[in-house]
């Protein structure tokens, strides 16, 4: 087959410079590894919108001026910002997940998977960071502009939607892109609770093959490439939203 001959040539070439990719020719480990990439990409694709939407909601609560909304979110933001994500994930999976299992009458009835917990914990963690960035952006909107909008008859929600958020989003975009780059890297915590993202899959392979360096190189290139794309997209959006004559 054409395909496998290219693969074999590649394996042979890499072997010559001391890198071991022999497992790619096997069915089983190659599949695990490939699925690891897919799972990581899938996590990232889900986590970016989840973190942005949750961040928006958190920021709206933080700046609502209503303690019953802002106080719980403020508490959550402080906890998630100041404690290790790995610990949050372990806690969620080992404590909250067990609690849910007991609630629904056994682990077999619990619909929440490790994958879900990674999305929830990492997504809300990054959302907390987004929220802080957006909150700062919202608070930077001059109070006189908000009052002028109020004076016209805009409701508080409309002011947030049409005035504060568009300006805050522009101001906080660099911070948000930074958070997203962290998010991409943070997906690797999934391996602590056996979500078979790329680092977990790689560990499975290299414990068999003893080819840590070979896999590590690919993992590093993989994450670098994703984050270069994220950063580029960020710059593109920034340019797209740039307002002529305005300092943002």
């Amino acid at each position: 087959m054409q395909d496998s001959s290219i693969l074999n040539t590649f394996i042979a070439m890499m072997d010559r410079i001391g890198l071991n990719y022999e497992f790619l020719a096997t069915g089983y480990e190659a599949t695990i590894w490939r699925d690891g990439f897919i799972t990581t990409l899938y996590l990232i694709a889900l986590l970016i919108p989840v973190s942005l939407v949750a961040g928006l909601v958190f920021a709206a609560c933080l700046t609502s001026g209503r303690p019953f909304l802002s106080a719980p979110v403020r508490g959550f933001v402080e906890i998630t910002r100041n404690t290790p994500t790995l610990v949050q994930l372990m806690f969620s999976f080992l404590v909250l997940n067990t609690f849910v299992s007991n609630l629904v009458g056994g682990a077999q009835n619990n619909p929440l998977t490790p994958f879900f917990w990674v999305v929830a914990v990492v997504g809300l963690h990054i959302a907390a960071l987004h929220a802080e960035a957006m909150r700062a952006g919202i608070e930077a909107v001059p109070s006189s502009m908000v009052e002028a909008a109020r004076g016209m008859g805009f409701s508080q929600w409309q002011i947030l939607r049409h005035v504060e958020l568009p300006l805050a989003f522009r101001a906080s975009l660099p911070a948000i892109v930074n958070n997203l780059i962290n998010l991409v890297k943070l997906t690797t915590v999934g391996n602590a609770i056996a979500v078979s993202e790329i680092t977990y899959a790689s560990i499975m392979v290299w414990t068999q093959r003893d080819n840590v360096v070979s896999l590590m190189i690919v993992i590093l290139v993989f994450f670098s490439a994703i984050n270069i794309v994220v950063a580029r997209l960020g710059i593109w959006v920034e340019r797209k939203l740039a307002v002529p004559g305005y300092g943002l």
Partner: protein
Amino acid sequence: MTVSPDNAMTTTDGKAQDHIVKLEDIHLSFGQTQVLKGVNLTVNKGDAVSIIGPSGSGKSTLLRCINALAMPQRGRITVNGTRVDQLTKESERIELRKRVGIVFQQYNLFPHLTVLDNIVLPPTKILGVNRAAAEKLARELLDKVRLSDKANSYPGQLSGGQQQRVAIARALAMKPELVLFDEVTSALDPETVGEVLQVIRDLVRDGMTSILVTHEMRFAEEISDTVVFTENGLIVDHGSPEQIFHTSTNPRIRQFVGGLGARGTVRDGEGI
């Protein structure tokens, strides 16, 4: 037009039905600071009323009371039949604000929207007007404030005077029953003051009820039906422009009016 500085309103001209704004014994404090100490003011439909007075005398607060951006602790405010002081719900206050335009010293245009969209946004989002109708009105208003060629510019690309004219157009897009102007030329370069005053002059001429806080004495004299002098949270005197600017015997008013005149803040709408 009748203004009563000290007690409840009395109308001398028998045109009580023409009241569009009536403030009665307005008291307002921020914490310990008493800002309004019993203000009475009546504005008739179609009139232009200028409020002059030293900084900190409560002029802005007075205007903000009229469209419920500030709520007095005591007194009655009536705007075209609506008891503003009794509006406790934000939704009711929004209903009022739709009818009362206000323009501030800082133009406060939305910097991320084009000039056209700045004017289209309020009627579409607040009144539910459809985009096409709102845009048609916006273009008419831009024509009126002589900025048709700037429809697609962003506020940051305009001079202060141009931004302020857009802000006035934006207020008018809500088709308000009256417009409040709070020192709308105070932040402008001298050379752009005239173009903004000209827009207001046109509005007043067209019969828009206007209440203006201003330091432009000659302008106030020219366009006002009534001039009100405030000091220390009270309306000290009121009357025709002639009375306030020329024949007042009140030493504070004479000093204030003379002082501003001497400082040369009087500018006119020429050169537009």
